[in-house]
């Protein structure tokens, strides 16, 4: 069976006053039906850009967008007409954004915004009463206490955690196949983060959705997903089954990243990674991680490393693992 979603050789650049920023550098990834996929990497490495490209909601300064985004083995989202694209957004893929405050319109009540989305997604005539009932049903599904009150509230009257629940409820209105959760808990406290992640996990299992989860809470990605991609500076550098990836990271970037995370066992914190994410105006020609890598050799600076299967279903893009 073909994967539900397959991204092939995706390139995206941004035009800025400084020049062209070459961000995505040939991204390849896939999501199988019913699979939960994690995407990790530090700020500015292109995670959100990849997701926006999938839904074709890149900002207007995105240029040189190349590649294929194959949905259900047949259609290329990149080549879809407006109508087909609307159908995908309406019925198939939905996205939860990082900041629930920005995702909700401050001047409309939650209920009005939800009814708008339901009207758009369900694509059939519904009376106001039906719309409201459906909205309340979704609010209950995300376990908001007192959904009637939330329905009649403005976003500013809700806490951050409640707002994120509303955003999830809205996403559920149109996510029938794939849910993209882009840092759904970044601005939330750790106890609320825990609740929201459990909620997402629950609705996803219940509705049999596929998920792409982007998160800085690496532990959450480890426990929630089946397979994880690691991204660095516009490249996918490693992919493996989630447990395996976190136990046995191969790419020097993944190793540096995971060792930097403070552990509850209290054995101290790793050394971090020297330097910072490269300038996308003139990214390094070979491996983009080479300038920060302790193991970099001459070939690393010359050409992009191949995608190597080191062990079963554990891939890495690094010259260290290339056979001579």
């Amino acid at each position, binding site marked *: 069976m073909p994967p539900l979603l397959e991204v092939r050789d995706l390139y995206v650049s941004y035009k800025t006053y400084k020049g062209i920023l070459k961000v995505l550098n040939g991204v390849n990834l896939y999501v199988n039906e019913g699979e939960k996929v994690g995407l990790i990497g530090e700020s500015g490495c292109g995670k959100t850009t990849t997701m926006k490209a999938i839904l074709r909601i890149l900002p207007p300064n995105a240029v040189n967008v190349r590649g294929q985004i194959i949905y259900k083995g047949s259609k290329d989202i990149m080549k879809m007409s407006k109508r087909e694209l609307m159908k995908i957004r309406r019925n198939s893929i939905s996205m939860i954004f990082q900041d629930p405050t920005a995702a909700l319109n401050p001047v409309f009540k939650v209920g009005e915004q939800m009814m708008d989305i339901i009207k758009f997604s369900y694509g059939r005539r519904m009376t106001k009463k039906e719309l409201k009932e459906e909205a309340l049903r979704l609010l209950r599904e995300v376990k908001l206490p007192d959904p009637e009150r939330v329905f009649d509230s403005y976003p500013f009257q809700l806490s951050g955690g409640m707002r994120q629940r509303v955003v999830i409820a809205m996403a559920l209105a149109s996510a029938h196949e794939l849910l993209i959760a882009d840092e759904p808990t970044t601005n939330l406290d*750790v106890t609320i983060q825990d609740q929201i992640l459990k909620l997402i996990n629950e609705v996803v299992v219940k509705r049999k959705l596929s998920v792409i989860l982007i998160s800085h809470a690496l532990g959450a990605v480890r*426990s929630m997903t089946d397979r994880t991609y690691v991204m660095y500076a516009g490249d996918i550098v490693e992919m493996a089954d989630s447990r395996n990836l976190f136990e046995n990271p191969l790419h020097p970037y993944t190793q540096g990243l995971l060792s930097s995370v403070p552990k509850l066992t209290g054995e101290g*914190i790793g050394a971090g990674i020297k330097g910072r994410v490269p300038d996308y105006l003139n990214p390094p020609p070979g491996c983009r991680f080479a300038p920060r890598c302790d193991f970099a050799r001459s070939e690393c600076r010359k050409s992009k490393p191949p995608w190597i299967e080191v062990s079963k279903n554990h891939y890495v893009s690094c010259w260290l693992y290339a056979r001579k």
Partner: protein
Amino acid sequence: MTPKSENIIEVINLKKYFKVSLGVVRAVDDITFNIKYGETFGLVGESGSGKSTTGHVIVGMYAPTSGKILFKGQDISVPAAKRPKSIKKDIQIVFQDPASSLNPSKTVRDIIALPLKMYSNLKDEREIDERVARLLEAVELPPEDYMYRYPRELGGGEKQAVAIARALATNPSFIVLDEPTSALDVSIQAKIIRTLMRLQKEYSLSYLFITHDLSLMRNVANRVAIMYLGKICEIATADEFFKNPLHPYTKMLLSSIPVLTEEEERLKPKGIESRGEIPSPMNPPSGCRFRTRCPFVMDICSKKEPPLVEVEPGHYVACHLLTMKAIKA
């Protein structure tokens, strides 16, 4: 040894209320703790717990509503403007967001030179250059590269390093670190934390380390206090804290942390799950403030505020469950 000689900071029954249009926010509501010379004291809590306000009152950003702060035995319960210069230079702070705590129109050199001019009476520009260069070296920024850069030309970690160099410029003995790495990526956080830990030894500094990240706290603090809605609910050494957490809120916090290994998973308390949200600090629950989210809530919890009692040497908890156990024993 008298307590005075052991503690660099003593906070006694500190309260800080803010008047707002809708009422009074009780940001910090009667907390007591002390910080020993040379230690890192961690203050952990979620947003709205009052942890930053506590730090801000200690550095003198505003006066306490009531209560006392002693610094090296001296009463400093007044805003910074009323403190003697010698004390102001001895207490410094590093803020959470280096992008807004550095003046964007000044070079790194000028940013660090300002406290030198104010507190060390340095006038000779060459001498100032020399001191700035040494401070930049201390935070691992090569002076020849960074001296004349502007904050906008620096990455987040580099900016925070400049903020740390500026705090060091007055040669302080105590620094409040207010979420110094929460705006940074983990690989950068690791570097900044290592720098801070090294500087602590080199300059014999005492830290009040404010954070919401318990895993980070585990690795940097000697002792930890947990705050919830303006109150301290538990104080213990870092080791004790993670081995034997006692307050239900602490357990809930620990069980909510996403972890990377099975070994860590085993350290998380079982049988408690995060629920509910933090109530408004304008109208906190009566009695124990955590009772609205606590799975073990009893009748007494809404009636009486639990006192902070020492249940084991150096391990303080404010919870009726444990007070009762202690009395029975």
